[in-house]
């Protein structure tokens, strides 16, 4: 596949994709984080004009990941929806047509902070909601970054919307960020902000520029978090 990077973290073979997803070939699972569907609808409800389209754009990115990886399972690592008001008509329609396009796909949502307030999802949606710390093999899934349990190989999560500052002229790019057994995925939502991560010397990060993923060596500079969401 073009625009991907294969990595091995504690014996787990993984593929980092430029669309912002993480593919695990051995289990044929695709992980994505922080889709924030319907965030634009919530903004509009509050009188802030945001065009429609970003939720569909996010779904298109996931479509493209599913097509290239042929994954049979999709795990959303939390913050699937932005707020209760995010379940607007157009967002619901877009999701229903997504599920219709991928009839055989098993979809799992790890509950995140934004999901706590949205109430029940429509029962007919083929989506299983799980609590943090459930596992697939040796891989633990959470929404918030957490210390990895002793007996696991890897913890995958989202929440941070990590980004790295590459240079003054290029600016910040969303990234995958790895530290001490914990891999944080970039936010895949098209209408989500980023958060420059505080990188330690032993951390690893892979930035996403347009349609490629590249490894960003850790610099000596200490970057603080500048923008949150």
């Amino acid at each position, binding site marked *: 596949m073009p625009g991907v990077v294969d990595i091995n973290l504690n014996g787990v073979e993984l593929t980092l994709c430029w669309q912002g997803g993480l593919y695990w070939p051995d289990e044929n699972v695709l992980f994505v984080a922080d889709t924030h569907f319907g965030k*634009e*609808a*919530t*903004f*509009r*409800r*509050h*009188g*802030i*004009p*945001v*065009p*429609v*389209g*970003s939720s569909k*754009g996010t779904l298109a990115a996931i479509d493209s990941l599913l097509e290239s990886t042929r994954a049979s399972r999709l795990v959303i690592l939390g913050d699937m929806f*932005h*707020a209760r008001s995010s379940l*607007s*008509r*157009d967002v619901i329609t877009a999701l229903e047509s997504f599920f219709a396009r991928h009839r055989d796909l098993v979809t799992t949502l790890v509950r995140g902070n*934004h999901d706590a307030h949205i109430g029940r999802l429509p029962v007919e949606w083929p989506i299983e909601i799980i609590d943090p710390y459930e596992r697939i093999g040796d891989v633990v899934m959470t929404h918030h970054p957490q210390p990895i349990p002793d007996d696991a190989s890897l913890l995958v999560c989202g929440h941070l919307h990590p980004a790295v500052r*590459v*240079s003054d*002229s*290029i*600016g910040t790019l969303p990234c995958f960020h790895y530290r001490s057994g914990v891999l944080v995925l970039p936010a895949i939502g*098209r*209408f*989500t*902000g980023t958060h420059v991560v505080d990188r330690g010397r032993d951390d690893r990060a892979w*930035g996403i*520029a*347009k349609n*490629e993923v*590249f*490894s*960003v*060596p*850790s*610099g*000596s*500079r*200490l*970057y*603080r978090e*500048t*923008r949150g*969401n």
Partner: protein
Amino acid sequence: MASCDSATDSTSTSRKKRYTNHMHKLPVETPTKIVDRYFESIGWKPFRFQRSVWRAYQDGQSGLIHSATGTGKTLAAWMGPLLRWLQENPDRTKWNPKRSPSVRVLWVTPLRALAGDTEASLREPLDALQLPWQLESRTGDSKASAKSRQMKRLPTALVTTPESLSLMLTHERLLPQLAGVEAVIVDEWHELLGTKRGIQTELALARLRRLNPQLRTWGLSATLGNLEQAKDALVGVNPTGTVRIIEGYKKKRMKLESIIPARIDRFPWSGHIGTKMVPQVADRLDQVNSALVFANTRSQTELWYQHLLRQRPDWAGKIALHHGSLDTSVRRWVENGLRDGSLRAVVCTSSLDLGVDFTAVDLVLQIGSPKGAARLLQRAGRSGHQPDAESRLAFVPTNALELIELAAAQDAIRKGCLEARPMLNKPLDVLAQHVVTVAIGGGFVSGELLEEVRSSRAYESLTDTEWKWILDFVVHGGSSLTAYPDFHRVEQDGDRYVVTQRRTMTMHRMNIGTIVSDASMKVKYQKGATLGSVEESFLSKLNGGDKFLFAGKLVELVRVKDNVAYVKRAKGQPDSVPRWMGGRMPLSSELSAELRLKIEQAADGQLVGREMRALEGVFELQSRWSTLPRANQLLIERVETRGGHQLFVFPFEGRLVHEGLAAVLAYRISKLQKTTFTMACNDYGIVLQSPHRVELETVVDVNVFSTENLFGDILSSMNSTEMAKRQFRQIARVAGLIHPGYPGQRKSTSHVQASSNLFFDVFQEYDPDNLLLEQARREVLELQLESSRLFAALERIENSEILVREPPKVTPLAFPLLVDKLRERVSSETLGERIARMQTQLEKAADE
């Protein structure tokens, strides 16, 4: 603002007493006599221009009063309404201090920090004449209790800011009172002119004129190159009465001098920002009682303050520092010290350009080029602050070449070639905000509001399509074709546009205004005292333990927590001085033109004035190795150094124009010849460095200086998207996309917070025709790149003779460019390649 230096408190009261006694004896005194007597009591005599203003006011006219500061503009404007009231109410016995007249005058001041001082100076004549007027302020700092009292009944005269004025328009029940306003007086109009705050003021004025067509509008301004435009913006397109431009006191004496360095470097470099001049500056300060020392950036004020203290340790406590990032309490303390004359000198930035009069100041020092003649004049006026006193300014060059700039500025002032304030053209973000303001304040009918908006100068040329888009934007979110579902801000009720949702009203009122500050962080001692605030972008580059100069102290960063940078006092050398954004002004086009003439004079061997004569050696070397260009010539120098092939081009058009020009030149040349350029610019010229020799003959033949397809080439040559994104920050804020101020309610709105970058990306992708994006692109061209100046510069160059010289070494004109650290790269590499290259470099660094 005018004030009087002679009277101390006690004498002024006794004078007042004498004066009132007098008045009881003469109850039939005419209003003019009363005012004359007031002037007499403060030791002044009305100037002729003041009388003209008063007469014009009685006749119902509007106008603009311009002059240097400290020449009685405030009293000129203020006494008009007072005289008129005296005429209407001649019988003193009917004056009832408990029953003040209803609102008559709105006094708009650009800085809310100035409201208190303004109120005080307006109060003096009210007290002296014992008028039963009520005078109050209404700004963002006013108490809620005062504001709600004012909602019921406005005072006779109200001092306010553009933001608070707009806010008042959102309250329908204030409108009947505002309809009774007789005059709006806008103070320091030149400060608002050409800014979005100025446009906001124009719209509010249009609204007030709709409420009262007989409204008089008066503006107070420094002298500008475009007074006609300033006047039009103030009074609108079709003013009802006659409109006057009245020049204030003209005979203000002014003395400009330069502190000429003991030794003139033939290779001038501003790298040490002129601190070699510290001993000479200290000596000059010794000769005066109190001085303002203006530096061009906040970081320079920090350095100069340190250097002066090191030079004269006994001045500790007698000199101080003043800039916009310092805590308000510190700034107040400094201002009071200046007012009572207890401070010998204050090193400051443009933060002290405005308002507050410091009568004790008898000298202004300007460090580094003021970049404009009007600014130099304005700053000089900060000293000798009485109409009959002399203003004195001493110029301290930070590199020898700046002496030419002072000489040029003196010529410009002599000829009256002062800078024009460039005007903004119909910014849609401000209009969108205003339309919501009016919708909240009682609603509107489309045609009527359009007519009102078009009566302001800024929106005179607003098209029907643009107006339709604005309405769609506030009603549907986007153009009606792609209406945003579930969006409500303004609603249509029959043919009226109104706002019904409380939440929308509250949110809008919280966020009225156009001021956007860079994300900044408080700087505090661990023990708790606040020093001020500094841009996040600076702090994010520091590590714990790094030492930096701030608020005149050397501090060490301890940690950053919850948007506060905690510091402690440190010893030793600073690792850095905070660099604040926006400190770099380009040389004005008026001054650039004079500068070219000065260099032409030097080419002819005419060295007039101390400044030019001091530079004789520099000019001699420049003409020996290369040439001094005449005003109708463009000098290009080609030199090979260790760094590569250097091409120096000297248009003398100011830094911003040069930045755009450098990018365009590099882009055009690299289309002819494959190469990569490194560039740097200053106010005089450009250097393009390349690994290959540029074939100048082809370059000149194909005319790389052509104005043809200029804008297209600018857009292709610069990272204009990134620039537009930065520009979009303000637009997003003004148009109500981001809501910075929601005090105490941060949490509940955090899920509707997004950065302007994100909005930009989303609009770009899903609503590319959004006019706000278009506005961002236009503002980049106009404001960041000064594209109209660039166009004019190229037109001039096209008609100039091009001189190509190959000097043996880098010339005096070229040297500062060579060492200039500002480097920008343009190359045909793709983003991926650039990242790859950086990766390799970073990998290497990581391995070391």
